[in-house]
């Protein structure tokens, strides 16, 4: 289940067909896919000498070239292609589409092919960006013009839904998997997506005609709203850090804002396939990375010492030099790239006081909790950027939503006093409304504190306990349950009622799809579990291969952007503080499987002190009661789940 290889195979096959000079035409959708999985030299070696956009009107006519088009079957691409075929610029056309073509689309294209230049029409299901072998993205980054959510956090935007269905279908086809589907029960979107995919699989039975495996592969659809914490944290591993602090777009990192950057390093590529150092260390923590980089630089230095003019004394020296020179230069380029990247990362860490911040964040995200005063101090600190303040308050709000609502309110006022705009401050409530504890079916904070960490399947992965790496994404817990056959039908039901013991069977292949975007932190968990599985140790993950995907890959700012843009379409009430429940009495909480250890006792009021909506009181109480019942039920389930 290596998506990078799968897409690479497609691309290679595509560009190798007519053996002559070729032009490759792409559209906006396929460009990132191709650029992620094919290098310029690969294209050149397949005689692709020109790559262009299909909607570029200024292409010149070249009858001696043949043309490969790799396009998404979308309206814009069809239009551009029709225009192209009406007045063909190249000798022959080989059309490849990234997804299923409708009959009418074929007829439409056939109609305009007056010159009979089209030689091939094929569907190649490379319809997603393979970021890592075990991580794919549908590139549906949150933006106002491409929303993910409809008019409520439970409803898909129809286009986004179609895109997600297409993307996942393509993943399944490119890996030849016909999965059973499970989804996160609390998320209506997950269910909707699952139903649509199931429908697509059934309607295209001819394509999904694979040999059956004993235990069918599993498609597990999760919702970002089930774990809003992970994308809000500072990251401390290489790839995740780069994405968090600098942003990785299609394997490229824009360094043009870095002070004193050399011109050739303004934009660097950062993919595991082309960069051995990155391949080896993209999961390394910042500290390990430093050591690795140091030895990398040293090895380069010893090389360059060998290339010192003074050491070239004889013809043999010279010969060696000549032979090794290109390799040496390549190495040099790579070294300087990573040095620049890591240098910039540490500069940002220093500048934004990320270490202090990270410590508090980890405290909030894990069971240990954090002192209100340390949070207040950070929020009041003028040296810290507003984005980080907002993140911190959000984390605090998520953590102590029920137990210390008045502290959340006071933090929001403090934040407003310290430079965070009102618009942004509202997002705290938006987040609580769409991903607060009432919306989540599982508790994110307690398990680690109460149930010993020894239970974690990932304890081996953590290695040396690192203060900044205490938090493990919730996904790891879900997966652990899955491996142990303890992922309950009540929380993650099957789409169609599979056999009675379906939940106990351990699937060999698991594809996890995160609606609302995944993160590199989660990708790291998956990658480590995969490593563990292949290393053959007697671990829970043995023999299981995981693949993670999402509508996009988030860092904290893109996650906040998504929340922000999504909220504009939601009903106004989303900006209002969520009804605090009157039911968070300590006694009840303890009954729920020991989920919440209440620290400060219940807040005196039903509402936050800052809450204006007193008129909502009755309704709020009703909600609270409903919520209580739900929680009790869940708690019972969970207790039953204990072995």
């Amino acid at each position, binding site marked *: 289940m290596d998506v990078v290889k799968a897409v690479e*195979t497609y691309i290679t096959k595509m560009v190798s067909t007519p053996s002559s000079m070729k032009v490759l035409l792409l559209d906006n959708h396929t460009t990132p896919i191709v650029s992620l999985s094919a290098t310029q030299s690969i294209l050149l070696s397949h005689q692709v000498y020109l790559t262009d956009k299909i909607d570029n009107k200024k292409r010149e006519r070249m009858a001696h070239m043949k043309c490969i088009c790799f396009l998404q079957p979308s309206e814009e691409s069809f239009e551009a292609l029709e225009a192209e075929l009406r007045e063909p610029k190249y000798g022959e056309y080989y059309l490849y589409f990234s997804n299923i073509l409708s009959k009418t689309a074929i007829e439409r294209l*056939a109609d305009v092919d007056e010159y009979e230049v089209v030689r091939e029409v094929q569907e190649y299901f490379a319809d997603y960006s393979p970021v890592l072998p075990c991580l794919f993205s549908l590139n549906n980054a949150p933006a106002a013009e491409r929303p993910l959510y409809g008019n409520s956090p439970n409803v898909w935007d129809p286009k986004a839904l179609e895109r997600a269905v297409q993307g996942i279908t393509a993943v399944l086809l490119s890996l030849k998997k016909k999965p059973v589907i499970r989804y996160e029960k609390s998320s209506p979107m997950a269910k909707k997506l699952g139903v649509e995919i199931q429908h697509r699989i059934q309607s295209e039975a001819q394509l999904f005609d694979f040999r059956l495996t004993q235990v069918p592969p599993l498609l597990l659809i999760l919702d970002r709203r089930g774990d809003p914490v992970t994308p809000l944290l500072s990251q401390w591993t290489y790839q995740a850090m780069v994405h968090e602090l600098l942003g990785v777009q299609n394997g490229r990192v824009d360094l043009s804002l870095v002070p004193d950057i050399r011109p050739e390093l303004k934009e660097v590529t950062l993919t595991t396939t082309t960069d051995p150092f990155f391949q080896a260390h993209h999961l390394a923590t910042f500290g390990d990375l430093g050591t690795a980089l140091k030895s990398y630089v040293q090895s380069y230095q010893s090389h360059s010492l060998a290339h010192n003019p003074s050491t070239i004394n004889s013809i043999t020296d010279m010969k060696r030099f000549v032979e090794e020179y290109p390799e040496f230069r390549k190495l040099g380029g790579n070294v300087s790239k990573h040095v620049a990247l890591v240098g910039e990362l540490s500069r940002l860490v220093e500048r934004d006081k990320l270490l202090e911040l990270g410590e508090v964040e980890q405290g909030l995200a894990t069971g240990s909790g954090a002192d209100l005063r340390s949070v207040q101090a950070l929020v009041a600190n003028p040296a810290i950027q507003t984005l980080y303040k907002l993140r911190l308050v959000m984390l605090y709000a998520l953590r102590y939503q029920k137990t210390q609502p008045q502290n959340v309110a006071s933090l929001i006022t403090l934040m407003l006093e310290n430079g965070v705009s009102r618009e942004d401050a509202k997002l705290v409530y938006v987040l609580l409304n769409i991903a607060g504890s009432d919306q989540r079916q599982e508790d994110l904070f307690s398990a680690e504190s109460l149930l010993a960490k020894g239970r974690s399947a990932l304890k081996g992965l953590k290695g040396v306990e690192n203060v900044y790496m205490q938090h493990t994404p919730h996904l790891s817990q879900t997966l652990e349950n899955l491996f142990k056959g303890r992922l309950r039908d009540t929380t993650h039901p099957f789409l169609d009622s599979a056999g009675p013991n379906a939940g106990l069977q351990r699937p060999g292949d698991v594809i996890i799809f995160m609606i609302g975007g995944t993160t590199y932190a989660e990708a790291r968990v998956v990658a480590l579990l995969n490593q563990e599985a292949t290393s053959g140790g007697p671990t829970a993950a043995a023999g299981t291969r995981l693949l993670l995907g999402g509508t996009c890959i988030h860092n904290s700012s893109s996650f906040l952007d998504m929340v922000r843009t999504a909220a504009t379409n939601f009903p106004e009430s989303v900006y209002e503080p969520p009804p605090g429940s009157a039911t968070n009495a300590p006694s009840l909480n303890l009954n729920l499987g020991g989920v919440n250890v209440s620290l400060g006792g219940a807040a005196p009021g039903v509402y936050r002190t800052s809450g204006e909506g007193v008129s909502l009181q009755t309704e709020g109480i009703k909600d609270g009661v409903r919520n209580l019942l739900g929680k009790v039920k869940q708690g019972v389930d969970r207790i039953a789940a204990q072995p």
Partner: protein
Amino acid sequence: MENPPYVPYQAYKSKRHSRGLSNQQSIPNIAPAPVQSRPGAALSNGHTYSESAVSQSVDGVADAEKQSIAMLNGRGTLQRPVSMIETFTTSRREPSPAPQHVTRTSISKPLPPPAPIPVPELHNLDQPVSPLEPRFTAVSSPAVSSAAPSPPPASTPPSHAASLPSSPSSQASQISSPKANGKAIAQLSPIAGPSTLSPALSDRPLASPRKSSTFRHVRPPSARPSAPSSPLRPTSTHVRSSSAMVSSPLRPPDARLHDSVNGVSSTASTPNMPALERALPPIPAFELHSQTPPSRSAAHSPNPVAPAGPPPRTSSLGPTGTQQHIPPPHSATPPVLTPSTSNSSAVTVVSRVSGRSPAPYRPGFQPKGVYRQRTDEFIESRAHSRDVGKIERTRLERRLEKLIQLHFPLPGQRKEEAPQQRPTSQNRRASSFWDLDFSDLKNKSAGDLWRGVLQTQASSQGTKNDIRAAEQKITPWEDDAAVSQCPLCTASFHPLTNRKHHCRLCGRIVCSLPVKYPQRPETCSLLFVADQSTGRIEEVGEGVDYGVRRRTPSNAGKKGEVLSEEEKFLKGVRICRECRPVLLRQQYRQELVSTPLFSRLYEAFISLEKEIEEELPVFQELMISLSKQERPTPEASAARKRLLEAFAQYDTFAKRIRKLPCAPGSSQDRIQNAVLTRANIFLQKHMFPLQALPKPKKAGGATSPGAVPQEDQIIDPDSEVARVLQPLLEQEALLETFVEEAKAHRKFEDLKTLKSSLREIRAEIERILANAEEQASSGRRARTSTA
């Protein structure tokens, strides 16, 4: 063992059968040996094969596929006839070994120790013969199991026997001779079936008298076949299968490296392919391919490198230490078997891997993604849509052709028509009244002018009418009176401001007004000119024909034959917007037919690259065998030289392509740049390793006892010098490019180093050249003295 897929080969079987009958009695003691020894080994090997097959398909699906494609397309078709037509093969095979054998024997003769060195030599010699081997055994063995007398093996054992190393020269002759004889006996003297082997061998020379030198060596091998073949073979198979085992786990990581050697390296050590083939069904097709590489090399035989391929192949197993030990046992076993069968089997394995979908489901296995062909649907629906209006379209196309004939005749035709055409050659357009020359205007009075107008009208009217009539014959024109507004843009016509124009293709009346949004996003009609000699059709912009134009001297001189860019429209033929696709299609077709210089150059460039890519692995194997042998052979240096020449030519091609004129910044410019980049990458990838290789060779030459290099020098002093010089020269060239690069990148420290090295290397070249001259002269003296 009898397998249905073999049915097509019954022809061979029966032939062999009848032929073999003559030898019947002599065989049984030999024949069973190979047959029996094989199945066991076949089993074990079969296992490793499937293993490696899977691992390969996992590792480099694309690779395997590429290879198989290459096999299928590249040579398969070429070779097929060879293996299919029996009589042809015999006649072809005979000559091919001959030259080889001649050259080879001359080399190997002077060598004192026959035992170690002949092994590779032998392989070489077998090479051209080998196509026969796999087929013999494969075809024959079923026969053995079914028919007791087992005649086909009769043809194999002699060849084994013959190939046993007595001495290199005998080897050479005998390998080629049994083949010749096998056939010869069948064709010439079926009665010649003797009871023992030795007579059979002894009559060989009769059949192939031209190999007189082989005559005296006939005896020794005749004794051998019965003895060594059966006891040795089991051990040999054992060794081989084990080596196959070793090699198969090695494969996955190596798969890409060895790419072209790929299949070969893993299976080179397995002579049991025939047996395997029996075990696996899909042979008929691949059987043919199995013979491709050897027979290709036979076809290449003027080129001495190609046949030399197999020996390093067998030995190329062991760049890794573990396998270094395996070759010795090889040399002990009948060597014929190893190279020939292995070679063919390698190919069959590769093709088989890609030919079927192997792998049972395995956890680590990644299948190739689904893809779906929609081409058929597309073509069908295109055909459907093209049917509509097809008649109309072809009619318009024919009209267009006629129009071009009429308006833009070929130069030859024009001359004939010149007398009546010339005076009005510029007045063709029916709508242009005002065809007066400015100069005329100046010196004419008003009356003259008017008369002039009338006259020109009248005089031009004749030809104009002719043309009009011709045009109307091609296309019936719409009646002027019937139309009051343009059918395309609905602008109403006016005798002065908006004149009526006939489309010369469909005959409709349209306007010629300029673009005006939103009614007229593009003009309703356009003009085109054509050039029949080049077939180019060009659209020309609308101009306003004032009837008055500058008369540039050049233009006047050429009598309007070459119109300047802005005057082209005067000759333009008008068609309407809706007929434009007809024109474009014609234009497009014309462009397809003509190949620009660029693409011709490019084709040469690519075919050269392919040649180099084919040659490289062969050469590298040569180098590996050389490094063991400690002595460079002339064919190695020749191959190297050839390769370097090819590289140089490749480079010049790339540079020429880059230098083709094109507009800077245009797509063509980008493409030419990209081609150059590709060439650079290719050179970097393939020329650097080439330079690394001579090292062991040179070292070997230096360390070996003085006698050998001296001998070498006498053979060809120039090559020795050239060999020393070549890498230096290349490095000089390379350094020069590096210097330039460093300059471009402004890396001054690097530059300094590079420059000093360049100086040094040039000095070294000078020195060697001087030395070489001395040596050459002394060598000449020496030779003259010995003579």
